[in-house]
């Protein structure tokens, strides 16, 4: 089976792309580990247009239902993880290729075009102890796990919105929370900042560079140093939440398309990548704003561009043969 388009991912960009390729009657395959995208862990999303409040879980369900409603034209492989994308059967080198997507289950799927909407994953600190104590006090989902840190002293690393929200999640449970920030100012929304700053249980530590997470069976401490004075310090803690942004899931196409210094796929205003036939949208791209609504819009753009590309392919093939 040769699909018209293979969509890799299951977040807002992937969902929007699938809805539009379905309506264009393109034979579509969606390969994703899960639906919903990164905001699936959010308890209350307040900026998804048309919904004043919706949980990430409910939004994920709506995404999946919408994609599944096109059962006649859209096939879904989920949970399944794409691990490699290659260009195959090119008419000329790098020109009018088909693509093969290989998955963790060992399956291979072929498509005339690809829409990369695999999003991003959590960035890790990359310091000693982080892996060893993952799930043993090192945590990455404050909405999930904050209640488990009842009565403990906890550190949160990261001064963006995610870090601030982790502090808010922890306030009812932790006896004290440290907020460690690399720079000298908070970056998250003013309203959340104000709520945190006035709470006596929160201590904000600026210019903090984390060095090591210590523990025995569970986390017991965090070593860090002051970026300005270089002074080494240690905090006695029972848990640490890491909220320091994300890394694009672009590795599987890095040999085909142009990737920037941050690992983001470079796209133009048509959501086209540097490789003819591969389109990309959402947090995997170099779009400056990582937002559900923007990802959805860019997913639509990628779908319409893929449609245009497929029409062009049909036109071009006979002409190419005459050359």
């Amino acid at each position: 089976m040769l699909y018209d388009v293979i969509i890799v991912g299951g977040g807002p960009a992937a969902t929007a792309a699938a809805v539009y390729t379905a309506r264009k009657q393109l034979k579509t395959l969606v390969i994703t580990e899960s639906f919903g995208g990164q905001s699936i862990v959010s308890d209350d999303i307040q900026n998804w247009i048309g919904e004043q409040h919706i949980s990430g879980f409910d939004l994920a369900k709506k995404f999946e239902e919408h994609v599944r409603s096109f059962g006649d034209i859209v096939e879904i492989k989920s949970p399944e993880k794409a691990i490699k994308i290659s260009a195959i059967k090119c008419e000329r080198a790098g020109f009018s290729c088909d693509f093969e997507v290989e998955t963790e289950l060992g399956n291979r799927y072929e498509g005339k075009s690809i829409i990369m909407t695999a999003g991003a994953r959590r960035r890790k600190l990359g310091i000693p102890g982080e892996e060893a104590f993952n799930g043993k006090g090192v945590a990455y989902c404050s909405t999930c796990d904050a209640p488990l840190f009842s009565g403990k002293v906890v550190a949160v690393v990261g001064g963006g919105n995610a870090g601030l929200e982790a502090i808010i999640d922890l306030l009812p449970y932790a006896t004290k929370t440290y907020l460690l920030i690399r720079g000298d100012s908070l970056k998250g929304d003013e309203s959340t900042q104000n709520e945190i700053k006035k709470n006596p249980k929160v201590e904000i530590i600026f210019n903090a560079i984390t060095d090591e997470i210590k523990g025995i069976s569970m986390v017991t401490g965090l070593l860090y140093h002051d970026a300005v004075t270089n002074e080494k310090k240690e905090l006695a803690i029972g848990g640490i939440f890491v909220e320091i942004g994300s890394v694009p899931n672009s590795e599987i196409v890095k040999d085909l398309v142009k990737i920037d210094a941050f690992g983001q796929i470079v796209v133009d205003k048509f959501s086209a990548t540097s490789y003819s036939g591969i389109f990309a949208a959402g947090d995997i791209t170099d779009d400056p704003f990582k937002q559900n609504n923007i990802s959805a819009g860019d997913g639509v753009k990628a779908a319409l561009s893929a449609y245009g590309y497929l029409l062009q392919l049909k036109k071009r093939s006979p002409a190419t043969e005459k050359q």
Partner: protein
Amino acid sequence: MTIKIYTTPTCVYCKMAKEFFAKNNVQYEEVNVAVDATAREEMIQKSGQLGVPVIDINGTITVGFDQVKLSELLKV
């Protein structure tokens, strides 16, 4: 088959696991470790982990929601 799932009310992966059980007509017992400190200790003892969900299927412990693994264990 006895199945026990340790959850917190705001944990989306717990909801996914419970939905997966419901879809496959799997009976389970749920304990909320956000309020039940004894259950929290029991969960940490069993799994060595501070993270939910923890799922105990006849003494086999899984941490997190892994649909493929759960399908294997439950044979659904």
